[in-house]
């Protein structure tokens, strides 16, 4: 996953914004369970008190933003974007 700085991201954001959003807590693995590429979540690592949220910021660019605590990071991960969009389509169908 390629991480973008906030400043560089702000410059390119705003064209195509999120097509899908998933709240990771409490249904932390909603999108991934049983699907190819899903990763095991170890409960012993602790569940954050606040939600960890991943949303597709720019589907065309393959950008996902993850918010946790008072921080956010934007990654370029086309595979994850495809999986999130796939999960979103399943949710609405």
């Amino acid at each position, binding site marked *: 996953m390629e991480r973008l700085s*906030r400043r560089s991201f702000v410059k390119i954001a705003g064209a195509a914004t999120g097509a899908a959003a998933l*709240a990771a*807590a409490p249904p932390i693995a909603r999108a991934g369970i049983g699907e190819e590429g899903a990763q095991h979540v170890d409960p012993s690592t602790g569940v954050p008190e*606040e*939600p*960890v*949220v991943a*949303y597709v910021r720019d589907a065309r660019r393959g950008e996902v933003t993850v*918010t*946790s*605590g*008072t*921080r*956010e990071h934007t990654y370029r991960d086309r595979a994850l974007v495809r999986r999130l969009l796939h999960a979103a389509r399943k949710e609405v169908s």
Partner: protein
Amino acid sequence: MSSHREAPAISQDPVADNADVYAFVSPDHPETVTIISNFVPLQGPPGGPNFFEFGDDVLYSIFVDNDGDALPDLTFQFKFNTTLRNEDTFLYNTGEIDSLDSPNWNKRQFYDVSVIRASGHGNGKKQHHEQDGKGEVIGQNLACPPCNIGPRSTPNYDDLAVAAVHSLAGGIKVFAGQRNDGFFVDLGAIFDLADIREIVNGMPSVDPLKTLNIHTIAIQVPISLLTLDGSVPTDAMAAKSVLGIWSGASRRKVQVRDENGSAPKGSGPWVQVSRLGNPLFNEVIVHIGDKDRWNAVDPIDDAGEFESYVNQPELARLLPALYPGAFDHLAAYNGTPRADLHAILLTGIPSGIVGGFQNFTGPNPADMLRLNVAIPPTTDNPNPFGLVAGDAAGFPNGRRVFDDIVTIELRAIAGLTIPLVDPSYTVDAVVTNPAFSSNLTPGAGRYQDSFPYLGTPHDGFDTPSS
């Protein structure tokens, strides 16, 4: 209004709506500066059973720039927490509230105060939205007063308000809670296409805010804690005497709401949803399509498009159309960039314009209140028209609670201050007509002589009175 409900998005989010900012050298403690930032505007005093309060999910900030780069050198942050003593009642209070820890007071609010100190000039400092809300805690679990409910619930309200003034280390005082809204304007007339009653109809103006309350965050800080070099400046012409001051409110980037009715949970960085420096800036100067964006960015971002709104204010173009023949000089001047307004609102007034005075913070155009702390407070008959009336302790040298900023800004936009930068300009006669003003004098009780300077809030039993 000054900034009450001034932008589309924030008009739907009252607890984060930054309605007024005041900053002045404290008249009763001239070694300090008082900064007041108001939220939750237009409160009808009887508004129970869940009376007004700050948002637990909002980060409230007061920013101070002491080196003229329009970036905060000090940020005071306020975070609130509401508690219930008894969940098995519908009541805010179950008896008289005679103290801040009264067992009869059910729904109470507390807050923490933090300060973030930046250093250096320019890009090394962070803008507000890059701060994480984790400064040095200087006050913890401080009690707000209750709202003023009525004679059976809060019969000794002033005692409760005094108890809610907290003294912190370093000579800092803070208060957060309900107060009388000190801002005054004939709203109904202004928003009916500037239909100034005294001019158009010969009728007295109406002040709809005179019976409404607001929530105030007030902080009084020794001047030496605010200035760049820790001094108490006495030379009004020195750059270090001028502070840039503004405030704002932020919400978490993401909010997740569960189906069980529990409080929404936030995630991600704080995102500014409201800000305020000079009164009426976003309200009157910025165009409606850009108001929400203006609220989200910082003073340092005001260069460019927002600057152009100052240089060519829409109201200056409207006045000649609304009052044909009354603003001929202004109409002829429209099209010329308003260097007077640019200085007053965006850079401060340089030396050489007003004798013995300056509040210039440098060429960076940024909307901030600019307070020259070397100008002593006017304690003997202060003039609510401030600097334009010869009282240099008033707006636009900071802003006092009683300053008539509607009249000052209305007349400035109408051309009163153009001669400061263009001596060849002749001000239209109507601009100095006494009726071309707010035509309002705030009544007794609107203000008080000591911190937090805004008066006792109206109680819900007696207001409205019929």
